[in-house]
């Protein structure tokens, strides 16, 4: 391959003192040029999550800038979906965004970002903290269990159970997690145990 004279002139044309070989260095020009125009850096992070739509539980990589989702893609390192997403999962970005009349994405105002509670008999939702929610759930489970616990059945056989509670497992959980949940349900005396994948 011959070196064209024109090419070489371009290479050497700007070398005046030639002391630094800047004109020869690959990025010499571009570095100088790049430094002379304003650049804008945009920082972002990638975080993993799981698709909320079905029991397959595909992994998703969210790109987040200043606490706001800017992109979502299938996680290529997940053995579940290997980077792919179904059409529904592929549009999961739209859980955060909706489109205004001109097609520009805007934050979805209907998206829930805080736990909501509706008291028995009430027709209104109230915002509550996660702590309040967790404590209330725990207390109600405990109260229901304690007030409905049977140690023996009508024939006098020891059963140590409650039929007032039911436990539903999740396809989002691993086998090991579901095993632990199952153990926990049994320990509380719950006998009505099922899994969402069967529904």
């Amino acid at each position, binding site marked *: 391959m011959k070196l064209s004279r024109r090419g070489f002139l371009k290479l*050497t044309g700007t070398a005046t003192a030639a002391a630094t070989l800047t004109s020869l260095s690959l990025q010499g020009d571009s570095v100088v040029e790049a430094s002379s125009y304003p650049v804008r*850096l945009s920082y972002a992070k*990638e975080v993993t999550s799981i698709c909320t739509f079905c029991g397959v539980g595909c992994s998703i990589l969210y790109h987040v800038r200043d606490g706001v989702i800017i992109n979502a893609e299938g996680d*290529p*390192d997940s053995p579940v979906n290997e980077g792919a997403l179904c059409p529904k999962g592929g549009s999961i970005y739209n859980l955060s965004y909706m489109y205004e009349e001109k097609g520009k994405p805007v934050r979805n105002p209907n998206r829930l970002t805080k736990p909501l509670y509706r008291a028995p008999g009430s027709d209104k939702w109230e915002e509550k903290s996660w702590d309040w929610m967790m404590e209330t759930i725990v207390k109600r489970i405990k109260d229901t269990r304690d007030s409905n616990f049977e140690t023996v059945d009508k024939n006098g056989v020891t059963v140590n159970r409650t039929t007032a509670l039911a436990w539903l497992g999740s396809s989002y959980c691993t086998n090991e997690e579901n095993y632990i949940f199952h153990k926990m349900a049994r320990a509380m005396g719950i006998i009505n145990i099922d899994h969402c994948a069967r529904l």
Partner: protein
Amino acid sequence: MYNVFQVFQQKVLDEDKRCCEVYPGSKNLDTLLLVFSQAKETLKEQNEDIFKRIDYKLPSEELQEKIRNSEVIFPDADVEGKHVKIFLAAICDELVKNNKDFEKPLEHLQASVEDFLAEKNDNFSQSQIPVLVEKIVEETLLERDFVTLLLIFIFSSLYYGPREDFLEEVDTTLWKGNTCPVCGETPHYGFLRGEDRARFMECWLCGTSWRYPRMKCPYCETEEQHEMGYFTVDENKVCRVQFCQECKKYWKIFNWDAYKKYTEEEDALASMHHLHTLHFDKLALKEGFSPGSGLKWVEEKDNGLVN
């Protein structure tokens, strides 16, 4: 396996042209690549032995075993000092041929390399590349990016070029390490595969690429998501500079999915994209990160880029 440092084809020139379009502010590198290539061709005619293909073979079970056990294939690669000197002289001749102004700086470069090789018993090992870059940058007025590229081009052409047939056979699927399975170097850049955006790191020396998890730092190997992040420059969609807050290192990733709109070619050249984005390296240095590869391609003290 396809590395701009070893192979010179029309494909390289086309990629160079496209990179100028993708990264505004970068200039064509065709002339310098032509000079390097011309020097190699001239030397090949004069001295056939230097670039003669080496019939390197490793039984496939042994090769797989090494890959599976994370053993580097060529852990202590080295080349003869006399070959380095001949090759360097050929490149310098080519550069000086049309412009005498470059004579002095290149004489200094050759003297510096000769001193170095004399100290090392006329033997140049791969691990000495960064050391020699520092020495030359200190002793001559040559730019760091030019020196680094020159030494990589020379070493890669002399050692990995002749073993190219073997390198083509290396299957890195089972490699789990964070360094290059072939030469053991720490990567400087990588890419996201077009079809599924799986991350691959690519060796800056021998061009080998291997898959590496997206959510893992290739240097300190942390998987803490909140420690890692990236920045883009002027919303460029193809190159992003990723970093780890835990080890304060950065690396560059090229997104071939985003690059698809510029070309229908399937094999993009990460090494070429790297050369066209050295100003991104400078921005990363300015932002307080250091190159995880240990190879500092550009100087931080040059003109301020950020703000």
